[in-house]
């Protein structure tokens, strides 16, 4: 592995310039500092921090996680310190890590999304907002924002209005036609589309006859879902012209290349951070090596380069 990065790995998402396409996925990298013993954070393209809501949330009761075949289910319940403490406690320590920080936000009403975006606007050190629209809209009977094009567009529009930094919208894969949602958020002004969030799944302990996580259902992530993620990235890239950020089961630079060939401009590494805390940095090193070795002039040449 090269010790100094030499290849042209730069990509951009709207006005956001990244030195390479490797980010970390929300909820899997804490507030980044947790990974300092393992990763040179400044080597990464960007970090996306744990989802933030308007008010602090305690999250779900235990058990919250369980391993499945080549994956895991989680129902953390969006535990977080709330936007105020995030700004005063967490953001302060993130300002000098020398890597773009994206803040993942969530809400249970349109108004809440708007409020968080407003509150975060202008806070130093925030390079972009990622809007998690997999959350239920409590005012619409708990239907997830991300499953109805109009609702997805409304959230996107509201956050865009309040933000001066690029806004990525992170889609839920639990829909019949992901391209419809993608087009809706693009039209509503999104600067990029992150996908996928977790698939909804469940696990049961046949001995106790109980669900393995207290919340009964949870989000499936990890290598198991990679084929679904890759397919959705491919489908969405065909129909939108804003950058797509691929997420789902990515661990190595080979995985990154696959997502970029499918059409992703950048990627996020999630569950793999738990398995190999150095996964994100190693992916950057691997890409650097690959682009050099293959004499590719820029990693951007890979994007959408699938040969049919």
């Amino acid at each position, binding site marked *: 592995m090269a010790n100094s990065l030499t290849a042209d790995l730069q990509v951009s998402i709207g006005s956001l310039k990244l030195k390479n396409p490797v980010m970390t996925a929300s*909820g*899997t*990298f*804490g507030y980044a500092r*947790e*990974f300092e*013993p*393992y990763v040179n954070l400044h080597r990464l393209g960007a970090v996306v921090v*744990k989802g933030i809501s308007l008010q602090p949330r*305690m*999250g779900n*009761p*235990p*058990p*919250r*996680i*369980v*391993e499945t*075949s*080549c*994956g*895991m289910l*989680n129902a*953390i319940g969006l*535990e977080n310190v709330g936007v105020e403490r995030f700004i005063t406690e967490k953001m302060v320590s993130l300002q000098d890590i020398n890597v773009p920080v994206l803040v993942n936000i969530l809400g249970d009403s349109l108004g809440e999304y708007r409020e968080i975006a407003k509150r975060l606007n202008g806070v130093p050190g925030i390079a972009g907002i990622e809007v998690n629209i997999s959350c239920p809209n409590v005012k619409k009977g708990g239907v997830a924002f991300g499953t109805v094009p109009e609702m997805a567009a409304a959230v996107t529009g509201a956050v865009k209005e309040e933000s001066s930094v690029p806004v990525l919208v992170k889609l839920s894969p639990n829909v019949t036609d992901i391209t419809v949602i993608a087009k809706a958020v693009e039209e509503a002004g999104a600067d990029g589309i992150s996908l996928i969030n977790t698939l909804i799944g469940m696990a049961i302990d046949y001995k106790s006859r109980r669900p393995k996580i207290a919340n009964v259902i949870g989000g499936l992530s*990890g*290598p198991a879902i990679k084929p679904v993620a890759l397919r959705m990235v491919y489908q969405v890239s065909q129909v939108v012209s804003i950058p797509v950020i691929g997420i789902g089961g990515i661990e190595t630079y080979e995985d990154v290349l696959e997502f970029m060939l499918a059409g992703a401009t950048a990627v996020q590494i999630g*569950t793999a*951070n*738990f*398995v*190999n*805390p*150095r996964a994100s940095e190693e992916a950057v090193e691997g890409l650097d090596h690959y682009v050099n070795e293959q004499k590719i002039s820029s990693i951007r040449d890979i994007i959408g380069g699938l040969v049919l």
Partner: protein
Amino acid sequence: MTQFQEKTAITRIERLTDDIFRMTLESYEIASAAKPGQFVMIRTGSGKDPLLRRPFSISQVSNGKYFQILFKVIGRGTSLLAHCREGESLSVIGPLGSGFHIKCGATNCLVGGGMGIAPLLFLAKSMSRKCTVKPPLVVLGARNKEELAPLIKDFKELGLHVHAATDDGSLGTHGLVTDVLKDLDFDSPTEVSVCGPTPMMTAVHFFCKEKNLGCQVSMETAMACGIGACLGCIVPLAEGGYAHACSDGPVFDAKELLWQIR
């Protein structure tokens, strides 16, 4: 400082019972930094199934560069570990978590059940070294003699007297560790350090509460990351809300946790 060591050499594997193994690993960094009650996250195989690392308490460190874990085979991950060979390497992250507080002024009582005995050996050693005035009281429980005897051995070698309790009475007291505890005389202040199954720790907590003894417990929960990033490993707090076993614990002051009488 926690380490991420891709290739931690296995220097020894011993089979203590049918399903309990002791593994010695070589890592100067981990062994020299480790404190009793801390743990490591081990990748048990090279594939993607099982996917996640498994947590194991550090049960002993020796010669400044070796550390040991004691484990019981209960599923795929531990079964893969049991099939490892000496000379092979494992990917290990550690030492992780907070560890036990050692209060030499107090009477120390270590209470362990089943594989919860693992971290107590390291703790007993540290105490014996640091708190030379009073050796700790040791109360260890398990299902039966077969399981308990090999785990007790190490404590005896430290010169400690061990009060044993087994579910079937095949070794020591016939009953629970609390049956042993209630017959012991505690001249306050006493600090009880516990690791074992939740029902056992619950019983010990209530015992200590009643007798007004200090009590620290090492909590086992499912863990995905072990480093405070996934928020999966919560334990409910008495004051409401949750703590994270991997980063706030695994050792907690029992009074701070929410205990449920089952």
